[in-house]
């Protein structure tokens, strides 16, 4: 069982189905089911066609056979325009070549044929016999429109939508479509014959032609005359009119008459492109492009262009001409005579003239053969019934405009470049002012003012010569300076310390317990900024060590430490009257890099970290250090530092490695609070401490060797007193001011 494929949705349906089960589109042609008489009539027409076939030339018979195969031979495919539209160009070339060859063969015999008897006229009248109730509305409208008096303005409207097949009929055809469009054109014209009242439309066409194309009207008149007098003897007279009016050569007149007869619907709703002129072009092209033609060399160059133009692809794909293209394409037939001129050879004069009579009768045959119900389903479904029934004309209005400028000057219906498509428009001007609300405007103004105020210069207030802070600074310095200077100038006797420092006493006792020439590691880790305090505090200790004859080994964990140590030794020599020299009584190993890790490494491997002394000599080959391999081998470790962190690092990293070796500190006053817990009885991590100038002075008192600390003590004591007074006095002053301010604020609050 064969299925029928729906032309709309592409799905298969059973053969007996008339309407697609899926998209409800009609599968089978309407006409087939309309009337049995119609089908009979079609069969009858076919028979008549075959009966009259004997008088038809071979090329036309072949053409008809091809059409009959398409129309009737394959009912499954029916009137499949898809097939027609998808027909290969090669196939067209094949039948065209056959046609050409037949035409050449018939050129001598065409006069013998009589095509006047066609017997197909009854089929045309059968179109009117269709029951009205089975005719769709769009068709009724189409039928009613030609009777309308205003149809001229509407049916040729360029913007009126028309189905593709109607467009092909009524509208202009691109010239390059002519080669392979001919069989389809015949089919379409047959369709139009069935759907259009023949006389009305022909009248409309005539009126249109009369209005716009005078020379075409000549053709139309010629056609009418041919219809009335199909005899070849009547053509010369008609062609003379054309020649006189349009200067068309004889061969073209014959060719026109030939094509008019070749066209099976010369009196029907034949669109302009199919009426005469277009077929003339087609025939001319056939003649020119037929292989083996002796006159091919005379073919003008313009004749090649239509075949190579892109419009040919459109016709092959059978795509509908877009709306914007409708009405803008000039009818090719208008220009053909300009191109043809008088250059056609004479052989064209005779052959078409005979063909007129040959084809004259076949027109009716086509009308009779192509029935209304033979419309393919896909075409039925695509038919815009509503659009047409709503009153739109199927005939487009031709473009009457004539180019007035440019290379196309004088041509009619050329694509409008400026008025419609590329109409110059003035760029609209939009307001650049923002549409903002009043609130936004106020905020914008506020921001603008703020930004403006940022850029405006502000007058600088005069800087007072003596500000309050500067005054206080000078006042405090003056007080301290005088407090320190006056005791020095006046020689105020030194006040004894309130009590001896137990930490200093502990360190003094440790030093006293050292054996003679005991190796002592002296770490000088204070900077020059606090050298005044550290020198005064450490000199009595260094003095005691020198008295004991200790072999001093100096290291430092800060870069300026080695130089500070040299200065300290020289100062100790100067104050204590010693003669300590490097490499004899002491060694300066220099700077120890690495911070914490450096100290840890030195505690374990001092020889590897300090292979040379500050003078570049091998430090550990001296007999004084021969027995030293680690810090615990020293008799005592004495650290001079002004940094709490350095003091704690020494305690944390070195003290655990010392064992029983005592660790003493001489530190600045600011370090004492940090290392004091390590000196406590419960911890005993350090064994002696001299802190600040007071510790040095106490140590000097213990040693009964006054030194620098004793010289500074009077000034230092007065200075501490003044500082204490200033601290307390200024604190009270500030507290009083704050109290007064708070009182005022409370008073203001109570008043308010």
């Amino acid at each position, binding site marked *: 069982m064969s299925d029928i494929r729906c032309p709309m949705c592409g799905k298969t349906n059973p053969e007996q189905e008339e309407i697609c089960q899926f998209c409800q589109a009609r599968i089978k042609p309407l006409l087939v089911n309309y009337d049995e008489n119609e089908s009979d009539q079609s069969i009858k027409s076919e028979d008549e066609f075959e009966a009259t076939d004997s008088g038809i030339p071979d090329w036309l018979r072949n053409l008809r056979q091809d059409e009959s195969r398409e129309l009737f031979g394959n009912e499954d495919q029916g009137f499949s325009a898809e097939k027609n539209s998808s027909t290969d160009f090669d196939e067209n070339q094949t039948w065209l070549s056959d046609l050409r060859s037949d035409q050449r063969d018939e050129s001598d015999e065409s006069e013998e044929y009589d095509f006047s008897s066609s017997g197909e006229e009854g089929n045309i009248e059968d179109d009117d016999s269709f029951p009205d109730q089975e005719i769709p509305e769009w068709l009724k409208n189409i039928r009613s429109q030609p009777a309308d008096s205003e149809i001229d303005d509407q049916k040729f409207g360029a913007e009126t939508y028309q189905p593709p097949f109607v467009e092909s009929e009524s509208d202009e055809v691109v010239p390059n479509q002519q080669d392979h469009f001919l069989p389809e054109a015949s089919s379409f014209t047959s369709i139009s014959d069935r759907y259009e009242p023949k006389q009305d439309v022909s009248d409309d066409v005539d009126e249109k032609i009369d209005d716009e194309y005078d020379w075409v009207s000549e053709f139309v008149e010629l056609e009418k005359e041919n219809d009335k007098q199909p005899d070849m003897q009547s053509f010369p007279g008609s062609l003379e009119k054309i020649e006189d009016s349009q200067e068309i050569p004889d061969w073209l007149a014959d060719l026109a008459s030939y094509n008019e007869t070749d066209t099976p619907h010369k009196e029907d709703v034949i669109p302009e492109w199919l009426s005469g002129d277009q077929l003339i072009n087609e025939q001319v092209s056939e003649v020119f492009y037929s292989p083996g033609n002796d006159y091919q060399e005379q073919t003008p160059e313009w004749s090649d262009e239509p075949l190579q133009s892109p419009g040919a692809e459109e016709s092959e794909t059978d795509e509908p001409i877009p709306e914007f293209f409708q009405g803008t394409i000039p009818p090719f037939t208008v220009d053909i005579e300009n191109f043809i001129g008088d250059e056609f050879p004479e052989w064209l004069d005779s052959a078409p003239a005979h063909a007129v009579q040959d084809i004259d009768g076949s027109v009716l045959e086509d009308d009779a053969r192509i029935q209304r119900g033979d419309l393919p389903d896909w075409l039925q479904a695509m038919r815009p019934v509503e659009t047409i029934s709503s009153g739109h004309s199927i005939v487009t209005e031709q473009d009457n405009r004539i180019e007035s400028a440019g290379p196309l000057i004088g041509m009619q219906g050329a694509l409008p470049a400026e008025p419609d498509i590329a109409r110059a428009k003035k760029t609209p001007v939009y307001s650049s002012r923002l549409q903002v609300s009043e609130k936004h405007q106020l905020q914008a103004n506020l921001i603008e003012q703020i930004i403006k105020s940022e850029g405006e210069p502000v007058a600088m207030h005069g800087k007072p010569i003596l500000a309050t802070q*500067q005054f206080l600074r*000078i006042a405090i*310095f003056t007080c*301290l*300076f005088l407090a*320190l*200077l006056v005791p*020095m*100038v006046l020689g105020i006797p030194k006040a004894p310390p309130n009590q001896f420092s137990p930490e200093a006493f502990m360190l003094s006792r440790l030093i006293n317990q050292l054996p003679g020439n005991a190796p002592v590691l002296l770490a000088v880790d204070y900077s*020059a*900024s*606090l*050298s*005044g*305090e550290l020198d*005064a505090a450490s000199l009595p200790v260094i003095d005691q060590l020198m008295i004991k004859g200790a072999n001093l080994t100096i290291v430092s964990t800060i*870069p*300026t430490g*080695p*130089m500070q140590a040299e200065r300290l030794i020289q100062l100790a020599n100067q104050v204590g009257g010693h003669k300590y020299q490097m490499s004899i009584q002491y060694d300066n190993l*220099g*700077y120890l*890099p690495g*911070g*914490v*890790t450096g100290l*840890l490494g030195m505690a374990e491997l001092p020889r590897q*970290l300090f*292979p*040379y002394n*500050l003078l*570049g000599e091998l430090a550990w080959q001296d007999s004084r250090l021969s027995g030293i391999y680690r810090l615990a081998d020293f008799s005592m470790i004495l650290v001079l530092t002004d940094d709490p962190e350095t003091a*704690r690092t020494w*305690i*944390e*990293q070195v*003290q*655990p490695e010392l064992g029983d070796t005592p660790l003493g500190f001489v530190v*600045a*006053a*600011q370090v*004492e*609070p*940090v290392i004091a*817990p*390590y000196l*406590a*009885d*419960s911890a005993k*991590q350090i064994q002696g401490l001299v802190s*600040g*100038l*007071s510790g040095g002075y106490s140590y000097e008192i213990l040693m009964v060797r006054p030194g620098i600390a004793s*010289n*500074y003590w009077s*000034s*230092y004591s007065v*200075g*501490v007193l003044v*500082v204490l007074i200033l601290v307390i006095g200024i604190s009270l002053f500030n507290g009083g001011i704050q109290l007064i301010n708070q009182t005022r604020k409370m008073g203001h609050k109570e008043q308010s």
Partner: protein
Amino acid sequence: MNFAELNLADLIGAVLGLVFTLSIFSYILGDNMLFRIASSIFIGAAAGFAVILSIYNVLIPQVIVPLLEGDSSNMILVFIPLLLSLLLVFKLSPKLSGLGNPSMAFLVGVGVAAVIGGAITGTIFPQSLATIHLFGKSSEGSSGLGIFRFIESSIILMGTITTLVYFHFSARQKPGQYPRRWEPIEWLSWIGQCFIAVTLGVLYAGVLLSALAALVERVSFLWKLVESMYMIGF
């Protein structure tokens, strides 16, 4: 100090000391050029001296000499830190700074390990034991100061505990109230806050005394210089 006894170098040093001291004192009147010149000279001299000292006291004796004169074992021992040191140079380049990461990792790792280890063995354990031993027999074995020692030890213990409690910041939040620690913790932290304030005051006093001692030394220098100049007839 007597100008008549000073040699030329000491004399120049004394004069420079006077100039720089007065330049630094000029800061009392505000920031000025003399102060900035003196400060820059001190900083530059200290940096330059540090560079020279590092070259002559560190690089040459501990890197160059072992590479040139040392045996193979010393060369290997020197080569590793030298390589790590050279990798640190790549830290100057943003693109190649990754090559210096191993050296930095080594330095940071060893440094942190040394600090933590030293803090544990040198501060935390000994100081914890010292706090525990406060109420034990004193090192001197004297028993006559028992009551005062008990009070002193109690204050130290209280100060240690309350200071640690002060840094306990965990608290609970009740609905509609600010987060607040437990009431006893609040009281203990307040006591710890007092101890911390006293400690900071003592540290400030130590800094003040150190600065005062330095000022005393400078004033004494100036006075002796003026006195010497006056004595020799300037």
